[in-house]
Structures are given as structure tokens and as C-alpha cells.
């Protein structure tokens, strides 16, 4: 018995050894565990989308056990009494069953829907972060394109998903989708009958959307996400400029022990938030909408939020139908087919266009602050405002109703706003960037405003400025702008100690003043050089 204990203790090492004999994995494993990740809150946005996607896979799999995508007419006889005896499709009936007759089904269905909204929101915010910080620049153009594809594939996935329950709202969405497909010149009617298996709505569309929603598009999403992450690992993460950070290093934490641990915690928190939202906040109450009927629709028929911008463009576009020689190009073709086409291609080309116009062919791994690239920030503000006007216009009937504005006035506001607001946004964003740049330089030159007013012997009052570093004979700071935040408050340079922590007891020793964004890495060699030059 005595020999047993040491054997047990040696077991992990032995089995790892056995594994390495076969897989030759020691070196790659160490490399993965040692990979360094830079840390900044804005780098979590893409991760948020990833976690939302995993929640979607988990909850979606649950839903498939109870959903039947059949358009066969049945008579409802489930628990929800107001709809008893109503004839509906089997898809709608099983959606109702998930909500009322599957124990805990409603919370999973609502979590699935909330996670989908979160997924798209996280993608968009992540995309804005990447755009405004210049993270899409060489060598990451390909990953930018993959990211854009992820947005559009996610968009398609979301549309298919909320069309599945076959309730009043989703049927109306499909009706509009069929009109959009019909509008495509030459092939429109053929495409529509091919997809719907005949005239709208037919009996094929829900089963087809189902297989697209649960197999084809998720497989595509998994593939694109894998490429997205693989490229991120291969090219390594970008980082903000800062002490010790250069274009050819990554400063941060190794994957283990700390970084991956924090990622796991973040996943749990995202999951928790989605669960709480799925429980407490009602979403898509399909039992109130009733089964889809071609003759019925109510006002405030809105798609999910990420589709609203196309709804808005369709509402705003004037009734410019083209009729030539017995043929028709309906007005809806332009805002619902051509515009999304432009919105797909133009952003994909953006990294190359920017490189061309700025004649910048270098590889960049350090991020830029939005203020330091006013033109790009202005263009981004333009795009965002364009999108916001469209999105708001997608709900202009609700705005008109809630704020007691004329409906037609909101449409006209959208039409004019779409042309006027983006250039305005460009101008304002550009000016703000220049102003912020100037303020950074001013603080570097003159120091931080301390708020201390001093009266001079001759009676003048001046405000005392705290220089950030050594000053020249005129009292001007000699620090260069390095592309990172300049402290602008005395608290940021440690004028005030950190607040005493601890709720019931003060902690024994106040920790070091928090340093944002990263611990100081004064380059030792540089510092010595400076001293030598003095």
C-alpha cells in the first residue's frame, strides 16, 4: 500500500507524457497558454457577440425539440384559452406550445430572442470600435470583411428566425420580403416562386426557412466565426498605444492564468443577463398577434431592431416606380435591394479606399484614437447618422403616435434628415476631433488646470497649471503627444489618494493609485538615456 500514493501523484505527469508521445503537443500547448492578450474594455465587445452566439446555440437547440415547422392547418386546442378553436399553422401552434405547454419553454424562447438581439447589437458596436480605432487597417482588411459578412449573415439568420413562428407579425415580414424579391428586375417573379414554392405564402416557406435557420446559416456563422478568431490569433490582437507598447509587441496578460479566467467569468455574466432579460422582459408575445392572415395587420408592425433601417429606407423612399415598355421596376427595389447591396460592398472596400487616399501601405498594430483621425471619424459619424435616421424612420408611426406628430411630417423629416443630417454629423464630428486634439496639445504644453487661482503682485489673477513633465525656458511642456490619453484632471496624476476601500472595515494598506489604462512600464533604457542627456 505504501507505494500507491507516489504513483497517484505521478499520474497527471505520466498521462501528459503519454499524450505527448502520441500528439507531440508540448510546444504548441505551451505557446497557446502563453499567448498574450492586451486588455481594454472595448476589446470585450466582440467577445460579447461570441458569448451571445453560444447562448443562441444552446437555447436554439432546446427550441428545436418542440418546434414543428409545418404549415399544415390545424385547430388550436392548447392551454392558451383565447386562441382555442382558431385555425392556424402547425408552426404557430407549436410556437404557442413552447410558450404555454412546455414547462420553462417561454423563458428559453425569450432568452433565444434576447440573445439574438444582443448578438446583433454586439456585432454592430464591435464593428464601430474596430472602425473608429482603425483596427481594420493592414494587415486586418480580410478580418474586417469577414466581420461584415458576419453582420449580414447574422441579419439573415435573425430574419429567418423571427419568421418561423408564423404569427401575424412574422407573416407580414415575409409578405414584405416576397414583395422585395418580386421587385428584382427580370428574375423577380421567378425567384419568388422558387423560394416560396409557388405563390406567396404557399406551404413550403416555413420548412425551408427552418432548415436555413437551424442548419445552413448557423454552419456558415460557425465557419465565419472560426475564420474570424483564427485570423485574430494569427495576426495577434491590436493594442492601444501606451508605455512600452510598440507596433511590434503585444503588452498584456498571458492567456493563463488570468485572462482566460476572466473570459469565463464574463461568459457567465452575459449568460446571466440574458437569462434575467428572458425571464423579466417580455419579447415577441406571439399569442397576442394571432396566426398570420393575409388580410390582417395592425399598426406598429415593426421588425426586430436590426432590420428597422431597411424598413425605414422602404418607408422613406419616394414612389418612383419605373414603367418602360410593359415592364415595371417597382420603387421598393431601390431602398430594399440596391441600398443593402451598396451597404454590403462599400464598407468592405473601405480599408482599401482609405489606404489609397492616405497612401498608407504600412502594417498597423497600434490603434488610433478617433480624435486623431478626424476624416475617418467624420465619415463614421456620417454612416452612423445615416443608419440612425433610417432606423428611427422604421418606427415613424410609433414616433408619430407617441409624440402626437403628423405621420406624414415624420416621413418628410426622415427624407430630409437622411440628406441633411449625415453631412452635418461629418462636420460636427470633424470639428470635435480637432478641438479634442488641440486640447490634448494644450495640456501637454501648459499643464493641467488645477483650479487654483493665484493673484499676482500686480493684481492679475492667473490659474495655476500643473505641467506633466519637464518644461523648457518658456514654461512649456516638452512631452510629445504619443497617441494615448493625456491626463486632464489632477486626480489622474495622483493628486488625490484613492478613496479608502472597504465597506465595514478600511483595508489595511491603501493600494497604489489606479493607473489607466495599463500599469506603467517606464522603459528603463530610455529613462537612463534621458538622464544621461541631461
Amino acid at each position: 500500500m505504501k507505494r500507491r500514493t507516489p504513483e497517484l501523484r505521478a499520474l497527471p505527469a505520466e498521462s501528459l507524457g503519454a499524450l505527448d508521445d502520441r500528439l507531440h503537443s508540448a510546444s504548441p500547448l505551451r505557446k497557446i497558454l502563453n499567448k498574450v492578450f492586451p486588455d481594454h474594455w472595448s476589446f470585450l465587445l466582440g467577445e460579447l457577440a461570441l458569448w451571445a452566439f453560444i447562448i443562441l446555440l444552446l437555447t436554439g437547440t432546446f427550441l428545436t425539440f418542440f418546434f414543428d415547422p409545418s404549415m399544415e392547418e390545424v385547430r388550436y386546442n392548447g392551454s392558451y384559452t383565447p386562441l382555442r378553436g382558431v385555425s392556424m399553422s402547425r408552426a404557430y401552434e407549436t410556437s404557442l406550445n413552447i410558450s404555454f405547454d412546455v414547462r420553462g419553454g417561454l423563458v428559453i424562447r425569450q432568452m433565444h430572442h434576447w440573445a439574438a438581439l444582443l448578438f446583433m447589437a454586439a456585432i454592430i458596436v464591435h464593428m464601430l470600435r474596430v472602425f473608429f480605432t482603425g483596427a481594420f487597417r493592414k494587415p486586418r482588411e480580410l478580418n474586417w470583411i469577414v466581420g461584415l459578412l458576419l453582420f449580414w449573415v447574422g441579419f439573415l439568420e435573425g430574419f429567418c428566425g423571427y419568421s418561423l413562428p408564423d404569427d401575424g407579425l412574422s407573416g407580414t415580414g415575409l409578405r414584405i420580403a416576397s414583395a422585395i424579391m418580386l421587385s428584382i428586375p427580370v428574375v423577380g417573379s421567378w425567384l419568388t416562386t422558387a423560394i416560396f414554392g409557388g405563390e406567396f405564402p404557399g406551404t413550403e416557406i416555413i420548412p425551408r426557412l427552418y432548415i436555413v435557420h437551424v442548419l445552413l446559416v448557423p454552419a456558415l456563422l460557425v465557419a465565419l466565426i472560426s475564420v474570424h478568431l483564427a485570423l485574430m490569433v494569427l495576426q495577434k490582437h491590436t493594442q492601444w498605444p501606451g508605455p512600452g507598447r510598440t507596433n511590434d509587441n503585444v503588452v498584456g496578460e498571458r492567456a493563463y492564468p488570468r485572462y482566460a479566467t476572466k473570459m469565463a467569468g464574463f461568459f457567465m455574466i452575459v449568460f446571466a443577463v440574458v437569462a434575467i432579460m428572458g425571464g423579466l422582459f417580455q419579447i415577441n408575445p406571439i399569442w397576442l398577434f394571432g396566426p398570420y392572415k393575409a388580410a390582417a395587420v395592425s399598426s406598429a408592425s415593426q421588425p426586430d431592431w436590426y432590420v428597422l433601417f431597411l424598413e425605414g429606407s422602404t418607408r422613406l423612399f419616394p414612389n418612383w416606380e419605373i414603367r418602360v415598355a410593359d415592364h415595371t421596376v417597382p420603387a421598393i427595389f431601390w431602398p430594399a435591394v440596391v441600398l443593402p447591396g451598396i451597404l454590403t460592398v462599400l464598407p468592405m472596400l473601405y480599408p482599401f479606399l482609405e489606404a489609397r487616399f492616405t497612401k498608407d501601405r504600412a502594417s498597423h498594430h497600434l490603434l488610433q484614437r478617433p480624435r486623431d483621425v478626424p476624416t475617418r471619424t467624420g465619415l463614421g459619424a456620417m454612416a452612423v447618422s445615416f443608419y440612425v435616421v433610417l432606423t428611427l424612420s422604421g418606427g415613424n408611426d410609433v414616433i408619430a403616435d407617441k409624440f402626437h406628430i403628423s405621420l406624414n411630417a415624420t416621413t418628410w423629416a426622415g427624407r430630409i434628415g437622411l440628406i441633411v443630417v449625415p453631412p452635418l454629423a461629418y462636420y460636427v464630428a470633424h470639428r470635435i476631433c480637432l478641438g479634442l486634439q488641440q486640447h490634448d496639445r494644450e495640456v501637454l504644453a501648459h499643464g493641467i488646470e488645477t483650479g487654483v487661482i493665484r493673484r499676482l503682485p500686480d493684481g492679475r489673477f492667473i490659474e495655476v497649471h500643473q505641467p506633466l513633465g519637464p518644461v523648457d525656458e518658456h514654461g512649456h511642456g516638452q512631452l510629445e503627444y504619443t497617441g494615448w490619453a493625456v491626463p486632464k484632471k489632477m486626480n489622474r496624476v495622483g493628486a488625490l489618494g484613492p478613496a479608502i476601500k472597504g465597506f465595514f472595515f478600511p483595508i489595511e494598506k491603501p493600494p497604489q493609485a489606479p493607473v489607466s489604462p495599463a500599469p506603467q512600464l517606464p522603459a528603463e533604457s530610455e529613462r537612463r538615456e534621458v538622464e544621461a542627456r541631461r
Partner: protein
Amino acid sequence: MSTGTRPPGPVLREQVDRPEVDIDDPRLTRFDLVKEGARRDGVDIVQYEPRFPAPGTRAERRAERSIALLFLLAFLSAAAFFAIYIWWPWRYDPGSNLSKLYTPLLGLTLGLSLAPIGFGIIAYAKKLLPMEVAVEHRHVGGSPPADRKLTGALLASIADETAIQRRPLIKGALATSLLGIGVVATVPLIGGLIKNPHKMAGQPEGLGDVLMHTGFDPAYNNGKPVRLVHEDGTPIRPSDVSVGGQITVFPGIPDGATNKFADSPTLLIHLRTSDAETLRRNLAHVPINEGVMWGDYVAYSKICTHAGCPASLYEQQTNRLLCPCHQSQFQITDNARPIFGPATRRLPALPLDVDAEGFFIAKSDFKVPVGPGFWERP
């Protein structure tokens, strides 16, 4: 430089480049080996210090306790979730408030069983795991020139060895065969999906062009005019619609009120006499609209000519019809002319009549295709 006397702080590149240490040196600690492994992976651990250099302090124990508490809280919430899932009344019951709380409570307890784990893990990483700054070397740009040259030579030789360029006959034949495979791969998919919208199978004689006909076509009723019916299939007498009122009608054929005839829903409107007079005047000069009205009654397709939503919001005072999807508005007394919004075309009118039994019938189908536009639309 010697490793022993190096001051704390980063000397980034030098350290990565320094010669390998002898990993069999018995004086090395385990952390020295960790650092050496990282160094060989191009990672320099610049700073690595425990949060609590002296173990067992009150602060450390407090941090441990609060993290443990979070994990326990998660377990309690999970237990609550389990109990609620099993014992809470969950069946839909309009009179009971308890059953309404089932879903919120599940979501809340599920969230509260996950969130503390998340916060606990993050607190563990932030408060107890050592503080670390590591610097990884990043290679900027492409592969070394030698690699590029060697790989380029390999690729060029592969292209050359296959020698497809030098054999035009094979090249042409191969391209042809690939074309054949492409056709074979796509034809079944397209062929299986495609349906001729102008000659749809399974339609009654003469109705194959599905985009051009609705359920009001007499061909659906053995050539006899189709009655206008309620959703439940009962036919409609003129007295069923009060003055100024409107109802949605469907073709009186089997399944006429279902989604099988999604283009057929129609709005039957009983106009006030003065409004009917206005409409009659506006209709007079358009020959296609002759005899569309029956008395003061008129019927317009409910399917919006923009995107096909049912234009269902009727404003009685102004005789305007609004489509709630994209806010197209139609002036009924001006022959359903679109007066605002993205719709271009009028709503088509259904020629009305009353049969011998006094029920509304459609004299014929709509004279133009209803609903959204498409390429072949005349």
C-alpha cells in the same frame, strides 16, 4: 547582461534575444522554467507578483470569503430555480397571478445562479491571481524573404509540372468537363426549386399565371361569378354594411378566406352618398372602371400596391385608406389614388354586382394584377 542583477522593469527585446538558459540547472526554480518557456515562445513576463505577498492576511481572507460567498449564493439560486421549476404552478391560468410569475422567476433564479459564478470568477482573477504584465513579440509584415522565395519556387514548379498550359487540348477538355460538373451540381437544385410563375402547375385552366389572378376570377367557380363572403364564408347583402362602413371580404370559393388566396382580401366600402357621387365623377372618364361601383358600394383590393401588406386602416371622415406597414395612403373617393408614401399605383377595384338572391358578387376578377409590382407587370 546577467539575469541575476537585472533591475525590475522591462528590457523588452534584449531579454527575448538572450541566450537560452540551461533548463537542467538545479538552481532554477519552477517559475524560472515558466519564464524560460514563455521566453522561447517570444513572451517576456515583465511583472509577476502575488496580490498578497504575505499569505493569510485579513485582506486576503476577506477576499477569499467574499468569493466563496458568491459561489454559495449561486448554488442557492440554482436550488431555488430547481424548486420553482418543479413546484411552482406553471400552467396558463388566466385567473391566477402565481402562474404569471413562473417565467420571470425562472429567468431571475437562472440569472442569479449564473451571475455570482461570473462575478466570483472575475473577482478571483482580479483579487487573488498574481498581477501580471507580459510582453509578446509581434512579427510585423510577411514571411522572411528566403521563405517567400522558396515557397514561390515550389508553387511555380507545381504550376509548371502539371504543365496544363502546354497542353491546350487537355486544358480545353478539362474546362469543358468542369463546366459539366457545375451544371450537374446546380441543375437539380435550381430545377427542383423553380416554378414558372406564369404557368403554375395545379391551377385551374387559364389561371396558371398566378400573379395576374385572384380568387375572384370566375374560373375558380366553374365560370360563374364569385360571391363576396365574410371570413366565415357567409355571403354578404348590401344591407350588411352600414353607410360609411367597410368590411373585409373574401372570394366565396373553397379556402377563399385562407392564406391560399393571399392576394384576394378585398375591402368592401359603403360610401356616403356625397362621397359616392365624388367617386362616380372621378371614375367616369376612365373606361376600365366602368361599372365598378354598385350603388354607393365600391370594393378595392386590400393588398397594398407597394409591399403587399393589407392596407387596413380606413379613416371614415376623409375616406383615406392607410397601409400600416409603410404608410402609403390611398384616397378612396379618387379611385384609391396613392396620395402619400411609397406606393405608386392605385388599389385595383373589384367590379361589383348583386346576384338574384341579393348577395354581392364580383362581375369579374380585378382588371389589373393586385399587390406589389414586378418586372412582367404590364
